C-alpha cells in the first residue's frame, strides 16, 4: 500500500517535470514500430501539449472534445483535454484505477471517459487549469462535470450551448456566444484578443482540412489502405485536438503521403480484404481488447469510421466567429437523426461498405440512443448492421466472449 502511494507520487512528479517530455521523445521514437511517420507526429504532438500544459508558461484551458480546438489556438492559450488523457490512460492499461477512484462520486452508469478523467483529476495527475470551457451539443455530462472541475480547481467555467436546428436565428445566437466566450475567456486569462492569431488558426484549420479531404478520398480505394482501428485512435485524436495548430498540417500531410504511397501500390492494410466495414460512433475501446484482431482474422477491414467524416465547410479566416459557428452547427451528430443517417448513407456509398457496426459506448446517450433508428434505415437497404455494446475506457464493461460471438456471427452472416 505504502509502496503504491509512493509510485503514484513519483508518477505525478514525473508528469509535472518539464524534462520528462524531451527525454521521452527519442524513447518513444525507438519504441514506435509503426511504419507510418504520421504516428510519430501524433506522439510528438501529445508530448508537446502535455509538456506545455504541465509547464504552464501560458494560460491553460481545459476543453471537452466537442469545443472546436481552433478556439484555444486562436486565443493563444494552451489547450488541455481531460477526455484525451482518459483514453491514453486506458490505452496504457491503467484506467481501472482512476475509474475506481471516481466511483465514490459518479454513478457507474455514466460515461467512462468522464469517470476516468475525474479520477485522474482527483489523483492530482492533471495540470492545473486557468479556465474551463465545455460545449453542450453532444453530451449533457460535459456541462455538469466540467463545472465540477471548475469548482475543484477554483477557476472559471464557460460554456458553449450550440442550438439544435440550423436557422438564421441559431446562427446569430451561436455567433454571439462564440464572440462572448472568446472575449470573456481572453479577459479572464489576461490575453489580448489577436484577430490575426485567430485568422491564422482558421487558416491552419483550412489547410488541415484540405489534406483531410484528400485522405478521405484516398480511403475509398479498394483494398482499404488505412486501418479503421487507427482511424479511431490517433487520426480521430488529431481531428479533435490539433485542428488550428501547425501540428495538424504536419500530421495530415505526412499521413496523406503515406496513404497515397500505399494506394499507388494497391496495398491494403490487410493481406486480403473480404469485407469492408463502417464503424459508427467517434470512439472505440482503447484498453487491450480483441475487437480489431477478430476482424483482421476474418479479413474484414474497417474501411472508414464516422469520426473522420468531414462535416464542416471550408472556413473564412477573416470571419473567425462566423466560421466556427458554421463548423459547430454543421456537426451531423447534433440535430435531428436524419442528418446523421444521411451522412452514414453517404459513407456507405463512398467507401463501398458491406456492413456497418455501431459501437455503443456505455453511458453515451446521444449516440446509442440513435442506434436502433439508424438500424431501421440500413436494414431497409439490406445493409448488414451490428450494434456492438461495450465501453471505451472501462475494461470492466467489456465482455470478451460476447464481443467475439457478436463479431464473428456478424461476419458469418455476411459470408
Amino acid at each position: 500500500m505504502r509502496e503504491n502511494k509512493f509510485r503514484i507520487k513519483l508518477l505525478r512528479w514525473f508528469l509535472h517535470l518539464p524534462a520528462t517530455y524531451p527525454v521521452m521523445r527519442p524513447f518513444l521514437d525507438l519504441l514506435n514500430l509503426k511504419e507510418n511517420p504520421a504516428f510519430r507526429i501524433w506522439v510528438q504532438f501529445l508530448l508537446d501539449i502535455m509538456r506545455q500544459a504541465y509547464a504552464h508558461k501560458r494560460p491553460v484551458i481545459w476543453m471537452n472534445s466537442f469545443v472546436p480546438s481552433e478556439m484555444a489556438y486562436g486565443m493563444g492559450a494552451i489547450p488541455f483535454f481531460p477526455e484525451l488523457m482518459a483514453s491514453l490512460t486506458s490505452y496504457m492499461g491503467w484506467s481501472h484505477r482512476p475509474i475506481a477512484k471516481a466511483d465514490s462520486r459518479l454513478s457507474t452508469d455514466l460515461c467512462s471517459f468522464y469517470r476516468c478523467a475525474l479520477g485522474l483529476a482527483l489523483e492530482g495527475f492533471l495540470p492545473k487549469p486557468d479556465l474551463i470551457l465545455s460545449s453542450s451539443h453532444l453530451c449533457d455530462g460535459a456541462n455538469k462535470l466540467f463545472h465540477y472541475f471548475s469548482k475543484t480547481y477554483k477557476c472559471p467555467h464557460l460554456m458553449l450551448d450550440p442550438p439544435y436546428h440550423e436557422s438564421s436565428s441559431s446562427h446569430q445566437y451561436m455567433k454571439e456566444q462564440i464572440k462572448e466566450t472568446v472575449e470573456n475567456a481572453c479577459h479572464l486569462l489576461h490575453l489580448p484578443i489577436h484577430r490575426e492569431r485567430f485568422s491564422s488558426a482558421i487558416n491552419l484549420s483550412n489547410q488541415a482540412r484540405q489534406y483531410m479531404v484528400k485522405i478521405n478520398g484516398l480511403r475509398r480505394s479498394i483494398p482499404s489502405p488505412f486501418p479503421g482501428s487507427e482511424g479511431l485512435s490517433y487520426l480521430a485524436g488529431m481531428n479533435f485536438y490539433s485542428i488550428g495548430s501547425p501540428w495538424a498540417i504536419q500530421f495530415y500531410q505526412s499521413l496523406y503521403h503515406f496513404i497515397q504511397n500505399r494506394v499507388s501500390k494497391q496495398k491494403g492494410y490487410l493481406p486480403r480484404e473480404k469485407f469492408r466495414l463502417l464503424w459508427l460512433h467517434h470512439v472505440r475501446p482503447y484498453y487491450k481488447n480483441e475487437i480489431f484482431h477478430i476482424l483482421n482474422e476474418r479479413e474484414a477491414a474497417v474501411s472508414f469510421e464516422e469520426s473522420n467524416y468531414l462535416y464542416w465547410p471550408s472556413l473564412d479566416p477573416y470571419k473567425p466567429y462566423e466560421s466556427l459557428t458554421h463548423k459547430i452547427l454543421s456537426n451531423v451528430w447534433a440535430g435531428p437523426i436524419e442528418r446523421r443517417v444521411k451522412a452514414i448513407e453517404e459513407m456507405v456509398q463512398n467507401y463501398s461498405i458491406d456492413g456497418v457496426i455501431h459501437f455503443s459506448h456505455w453511458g453515451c446517450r446521444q449516440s446509442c440512443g440513435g442506434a436502433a433508428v439508424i438500424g431501421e434505415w440500413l436494414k431497409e437497404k439490406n445493409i448488414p448492421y451490428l450494434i456492438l455494446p461495450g465501453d471505451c475506457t472501462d475494461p470492466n464493461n467489456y465482455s470478451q466472449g460476447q464481443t467475439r460471438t457478436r463479431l464473428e456471427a456478424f461476419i458469418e452472416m455476411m459470408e
Partner: protein
Amino acid sequence: MNPILDFKKIIHEEKRRTSNLQEGPVIGWTCTYLPLEILEGAGISPWRILPETSSDKGDAYLDPNFCPFIKASLGKALEGGYSFLSGIIILNSCDGMRRLYDAWRFYCHPSFSYFLDLPRMVTPSSIAFFRDGLKDLIKQIEDHFRLKISEDGLINAIEGANTTRTYLKRLFSLQGRGDPPLMQSDILEIVSEGWKNPRRVFNKSLNIFLQGLETYPPTHLEGPRVMITGSLMEGSALIHLIEELGGQVVSSELCVGNRIIDQIVLDSDPLGSLSKAYLEKTSCARMYDTEQRIGHLKQELERTQAQGLIYFSLKFCDPYLYEAPAIEETLRQMGMPMLFIEGEYTGKMGGGIRTRVQAFLEVLERDARK
C-alpha cells in the same frame, strides 16, 4: 375527510358545470420549460406526458442504458396510450429527449411533432433566441392546425396561467410553516390534476378548494424535516414513502413539484415575457448554471428549516447524476446530511430504498436530539 378525494370531486363537479369545454386538439408535452400559454392561447389542450407505470415496449428502440422515463413514454406511445393526442412537442431538454424525438417520429408517426430548442444559459441573446423558437412554434401550430394565435389569446392564456401560479404558490407555502392541513404528497397530487384538466376548470376548483382548506384538521407532523430535489419522478411514490416513515417533506424542488414560475409580468411583448420567465424559472440541472441551483437549494433549505436533503436521480439521467457530486460537496460544507437515491421510473420504491430512507430519517432524528 380526504382532501384529495374532495379535490377530485370538486374538479368533477366543475367539469360538469362548465359549459362549452372546448373540444380542440390535444398536444402532448414532456418538459416544463414549454410555455403552455402558447397552446392554450390557440385553444389547444396541453397534456403532460407522464406515463403512470413503466413500460418496456420501448426498450428495443432505445439503448439499454437509457432514461427509464423516456423509455416508459415511448413504450406507452407504442402501446397506443397516446393515440388521443393530435401531436407532440418535445424540448431540447437533454440528450435523451433528442433521441426520444427521433424514435417517436420514426416508430409512432405523430401527425404533428415539433422539437423546441431550449438554451441552457440565461443571457439577453439566449432569451431572444428562445423567443424566436417560440415564434416559430406558433407559426408551425398555426399552419398545421389552421388557426390563429392572437396576441389577445396569448395574453389571456398568460393571465390564466398566472392565476394558477398564485393558487399553487399558496398551496406550496402551506409547507414549511408547521401544522399544514395537507401533506406534501397531497399537494403534488393536486398539482398533477392541472396537467390533465382544462385551465379554467383547474383554476376554479383550486380556488374553491383553497377557500375550504381551513376546515381540514391540521396534520400533526413531528418527524424530521426533509427537502427533496432531483429529476423527474413518477407520481409521489418517494414522497409517500418518506411520509409513511414519519418524515415531513417540507419542499419538493422538482419539475413535478414546486419548481414553478412565480408570476409572468406582462409587457408590450408577451412572447418576450414568456421567453424570459421560462428561462429564468427555478432551474433544472440541465441548465448551465450549477451555482445558481446550489444557491437556490441553500435558500430553500433555510426557508423551510429542513434538516436534510434527499437527492433523487432517475437511472441514466446525466444532468442529475453528473450534478450530484457538486451538491453533495455543498451540503457537506453546510453540515447538512444528504441522501442520494438513483431510481427507476416505477411507482414502486424497492426494499433497498425503503431501508435507506428509514436509516436517513433515523440519523436526522438522532442529530435533532443531540
